[in-house]
């Protein structure tokens, strides 16, 4: 493993410290709970929006704390939900009279931790609710499992609820919007390589020089199916077809199209995927209203990408358009 790290156990704290040093006017780092929050938070006049998840998905979510987006992000260690304590204390710190919304990607561990923290915080009189995001079409949603996972599509839920909260919506309204965006968001991912967690020091799985993994999540775990390497256009087909047929998206739909890099893939390649996806959608009568190309929700250094579609309506599009000021600015 070759990485810019000092000590695998300090990977997350050192990253968060660097993030706070780079954004001294806007962010505060609370080391006791791995917490990144707005320097001036919580805003007593709005619902606090908090995202919790494992680390290793940067810029998600610690780097999108800021005006118009998250009030705080509470990450665990790499690919591990934060300890219950961290979430509980984060909720207390972010408590606002208008309430707290915890956004969580739907995974076993995360669900358990956040359910426990919500119970405990509610018991102390904090108005807190939890919204689980589950946009991944590669996982079958059956009563036997915990259901679909949340992956890169969570960005759209976050952006929309954050904009609504910023506009003054109450907790019920914010949740209505979050559930609505989640319900029209679909994602599927592919890995070209495995990723290497710092604490493990070696790739999570082995992929041959001509193999790819279809239907991967964002935790470096293997996907649904291994396939032979194919062209960019063929990969777009593999990802887009299950996404489109799932909602389903149909002719006349206006969508947001996100091509998300998983960490090790350069943005040049993402635009090759984007171009093909855009054209294939157009052929089906689906028009792209807003485009997102880059790294949003990654798996450390994994080479790979995911495609997300969101069916837009006036309300969602307007919320996506609202301004936001976050550390992953360019200038």
């Amino acid at each position, binding site marked *: 493993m070759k990485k810019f790290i000092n000590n695998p156990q300090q990977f997350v704290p050192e990253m968060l410290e660097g993030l706070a040093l780079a954004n001294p006017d806007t962010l505060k780092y609370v080391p006791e709970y791995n917490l990144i929050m707005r320097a001036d938070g919580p805003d007593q006049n709005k619902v606090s929006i908090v995202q919790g998840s494992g680390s290793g998905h940067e810029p998600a979510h610690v780097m999108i704390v800021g005006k118009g987006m998250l009030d705080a992000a509470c990450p665990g260690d790499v690919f591990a*939900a934060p300890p219950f304590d961290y979430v509980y204390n984060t909720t207390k710190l972010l408590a606002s009279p208008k309430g707290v919304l915890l956004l969580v990607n739907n995974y076993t*561990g995360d669900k358990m931790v956040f359910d*426990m923290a919500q119970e405990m915080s509610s018991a102390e009189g904090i108005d807190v609710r939890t919204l689980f995001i589950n946009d991944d079409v590669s996982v079958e949603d059956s009563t036997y499992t915990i259901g679909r996972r949340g992956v890169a599509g969570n960005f759209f839920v976050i952006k929309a609820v954050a904009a609504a909260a910023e506009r003054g919506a109450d907790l019920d309204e914010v949740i209505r919007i979050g559930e609505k965006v989640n319900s029209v968001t679909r994602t599927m991912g592919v890995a070209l390589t495995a990723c290497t967690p710092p604490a*493990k020091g070696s790739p*999570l799985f082995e992929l041959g020089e001509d193999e790819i993994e279809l239907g991967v999540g964002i935790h470096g775990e*293997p996907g*649904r199916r291994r396939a032979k390497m194919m062209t960019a256009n063929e990969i777009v087909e593999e990802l887009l077809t299950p996404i489109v047929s799932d909602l389903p998206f149909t002719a006349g739909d206006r969508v947001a199209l996100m091509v998300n890099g998983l960490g090790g893939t350069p943005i040049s390649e993402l635009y090759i995927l984007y171009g093909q996806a855009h054209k294939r959608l157009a052929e089906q009568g689906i028009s792209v209203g807003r485009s997102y190309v880059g790294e949003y929700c990654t798996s450390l250094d994994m080479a790979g990408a995911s495609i997300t579609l969101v069916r837009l309506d006036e309300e969602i599009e307007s919320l996506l358009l609202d301004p936001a000021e976050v550390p992953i600015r360019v200038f």
Partner: protein
Amino acid sequence: MTTADLADVEYVVHTLAQTAVDNEKEFGDLDAVVGDGDLGYSLARGFEKVLSDWDSYKRDDVATFLQQIALAISSRIGGTSGPLWGTAFLRASATAKNFAMVDGPAVVAILRAAAEGIQARGNASLGDKTLLDALVPATEELERQIVAGASADECRAAFARTARACADATSTLEAKRGRASYSGTRSIGSPDAGAVAIAIIIERIIAEWDSH
């Protein structure tokens, strides 16, 4: 309850914690096969804290001691393991309160309460390929041996043997819970990481029993 009971419980927890720390890499590798490879890291970070704070835990009785361990675990361990193991210790503590002394039936009751706690928290059934598939049958086998009047040594040996056999047998199952479940039928062919971890921990506890 007697001081000997607390000493036994302390020995079990200490050995469990030490095993988790010593096996960080192995547990991680087991979880990497179809999971995300962090099981070893999560357990090691939590249980090394348990070891380093060892002397600070209140030892009024077994229940108090176990509750303190529960709190330490759930405030330190992330991922799925934090809530599951934390809940297990919490339920174990609550059940320990019902027993004046930790004899065989008490041990079975405590283990069963822990397993039920995990079940309640994680919503898993037997056969879903989780640590329950090692812990539950091993506990049942322990009870069977006790009822049959086996010696303490025989009981412990049977407990460890069953945990190992059932952990290995999870290879044939398809994961229905946890991250491994996303791999669908591809999880078949390798054992569940949590179940094997349980077996390794129990084996060590039993192997070193006589020397404590």
